[in-house]
């Protein structure tokens, strides 16, 4: 029994419920939630180490032996993502604590953020398909509230679209679960994998797999991303950073899990479709990223491009490309959080949302300007920063798989990322300053600190590749050998 596995999900829920009672005391809310996430981060780091030592860990709830009960299964891939998302959450909470948005804090901003994290961590850890659905819903319900918290007109109308599209995708998810249960009679993921392997994935199961592809694509923003830019644009900074860092990544995680563990027998159908979808996503995202002058739109489209890029790794489907995707996933969680924090801060400082309305910010806020430069270089995949390793490995893996068009599209899209962000940088940060020293809004040290820490993390991740690589290698090893996962998740002794 590894009861500790439940903590990354349960601690935020308990803390969230407790914080409900401290409505009038924002200090307790702020620091209580940060403290909780620090504890969750340390616990998940500890579990990650344990997984590296002892292999896959499992927790059977209520001692119900799998495949009959609900299980939590922690492999290196899941734990890597839990650890990274807890880390980025700490920093976003830190930012929120210093941004002091009291209107929202009064209406339970922090409890809902914690519930969101509970859903995200649960989705990473669970070993049961229906439980995955439940964790998705926990996460989504919290995100509905966060989406509309504050009640601005734009948030409300965008919130309706966001909720409706997610109700539909949850419906498809249940549909897929119903069909899968009807055909295979189990919902434990390892057990499903075993049974699918036994029957060799006939066309019926491939069709069901496409149903799951649609569901997770909607969550991840793969091709079906039309809801994403509008809704991310309407959010306040810290929340939008958390959404950009985590929500789509949960969809990506689910895609990786289901198409490496469950439906991996017909790659000529499923993985080809994923490849085409990834390319469409990258092209669409690139067009969006250069089409707008509104910085929030530009960064939202950058999220979409990154999703396409990560999925290139899954479509190529070999060890190297999957390693690359894992690197890139970890990198993207950190750096997308950073990017959204930076852009939100720019809007907070200037009050303007279009990049041609402001210039010379680097004169007023030098350190802030340099952090932005690091962010954009890291996103573009320039060597010393963390984006490079992932891009290199995904590119290499895709070349080995012979996907030349995909590689070309992927690297062209990186250029678009670089161009779209460089445009913001050159216009907003360089040139003659448009803000007089006396009108300058004070940038609080806490807000700057969370950006700075994230920037240092992206440098650290880039330089310290050798520290991370054993974890990534182990994660990719489990993903490419489903038997390891099945062994860990079903073995009863």
């Amino acid at each position, binding site marked *: 029994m590894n009861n500790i596995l439940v903590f990354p999900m349960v601690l935020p829920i308990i803390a969230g419920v407790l914080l409900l009672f401290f409505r009038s005391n924002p200090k307790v809310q702020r620091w209580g939630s940060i403290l909780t996430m620090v504890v969750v981060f340390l616990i998940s780091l500890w579990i990650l180490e344990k997984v590296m030592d002892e292999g896959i860990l499992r927790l059977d709830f209520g001692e119900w032996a799998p495949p009959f009960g609900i299980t939590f299964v922690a492999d290196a891939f899941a734990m890597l993502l839990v650890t990274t998302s807890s880390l980025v959450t700490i920093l976003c909470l830190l930012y929120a604590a210093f941004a002091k948005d009291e209107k929202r804090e009064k209406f339970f901003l922090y409890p809902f953020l914690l519930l969101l994290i509970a859903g995200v961590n649960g989705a990473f850890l669970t070993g049961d398909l229906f439980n995955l659905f439940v964790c998705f819903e926990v996460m989504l319900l919290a995100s509905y509230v966060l989406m509309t918290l504050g009640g601005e007109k734009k948030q*409300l109308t965008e919130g*309706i679209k966001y909720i409706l599209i997610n*109700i539909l995708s949850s419906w498809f998810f249940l549909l897929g*679960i119903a069909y899968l*249960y009807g055909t295979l009679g189990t919902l434990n993921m390892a057990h499903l994998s075993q049974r699918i392997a036994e029957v060799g994935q006939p066309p019926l199961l491939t069709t069901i797999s496409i149903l799951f592809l649609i569901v997770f694509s909607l969550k991840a923003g793969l091709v079906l991303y039309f809801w994403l830019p509008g809704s991310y644009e309407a959010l306040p900074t810290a929340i939008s950073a958390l959404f950009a860092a985590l929500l789509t990544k949960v969809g990506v995680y689910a895609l990786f899990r289901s198409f490496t563990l469950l439906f991996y027998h017909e790659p000529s159908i499923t993985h080809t479709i994923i490849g085409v979808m990834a390319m469409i996503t990258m092209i669409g995202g690139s067009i969006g990223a250069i089409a707008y002058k509104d910085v929030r739109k530009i960064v939202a489209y950058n999220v979409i491009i990154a999703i396409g890029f990560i999925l290139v790794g899954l479509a190529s489907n070999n060890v190297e490309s999957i390693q690359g995707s894992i690197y890139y996933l970890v990198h993207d969680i950190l750096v997308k959080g950073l990017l959204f924090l930076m852009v939100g801060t720019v809007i907070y400082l200037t009050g303007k949302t279009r990049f041609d309305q402001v210039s010379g910010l680097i004169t007023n806020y030098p350190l802030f300007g340099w952090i932005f430069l690091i962010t954009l270089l890291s996103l573009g995949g320039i060597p010393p920063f963390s984006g490079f390793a992932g891009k290199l490995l995904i590119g290499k893996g895709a070349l080995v798989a012979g996907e030349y068009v995909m590689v070309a599209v992927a690297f062209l899209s990186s250029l678009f990322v670089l161009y779209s962000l460089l445009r913001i940088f050159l216009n907003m940060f360089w040139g003659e300053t448009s803000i007089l020293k006396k009108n300058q809004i004070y940038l609080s040290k806490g807000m700057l600190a969370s950006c700075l820490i994230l920037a240092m993390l992206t440098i650290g991740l880039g330089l310290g590749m050798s520290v991370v690589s054993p974890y990534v290698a182990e994660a990719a090893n489990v993903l490419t050998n489903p038997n390891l996962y099945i062994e860990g998740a079903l073995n009863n002794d």
Partner: protein
Amino acid sequence: METIITLLIGVLVSVATYLLLSKNVIRVVLGSAILSHAIHLLLITMGGLKKGGVPILGGKVETYVDALPQALILTAIVISFAVTAFFLVLMYRTYQSVGTDNLHEMRGTNDE
């Protein structure tokens, strides 16, 4: 029995689709509610509508009902209840602040 229920599910889904595509917000909420009912029915049908005993060991019956789909539906009903309640409140709040219940008049913002 399964066939009839499946047909019923089809009817429910088409009704829900019609409602979801309309402009009135109340109809959209009702559409999403009906859609979730349809999927709950589908879940229980996929488990098989067998006539069997309560799945408790030591009973006198020979066949047992599969209990899992029912547990799944119970969870799904609770979730869809929460989502529908939230959705309804959100629609009302939006109606209050935007001043219309017509989705076409709510759409888009004038940017760029």
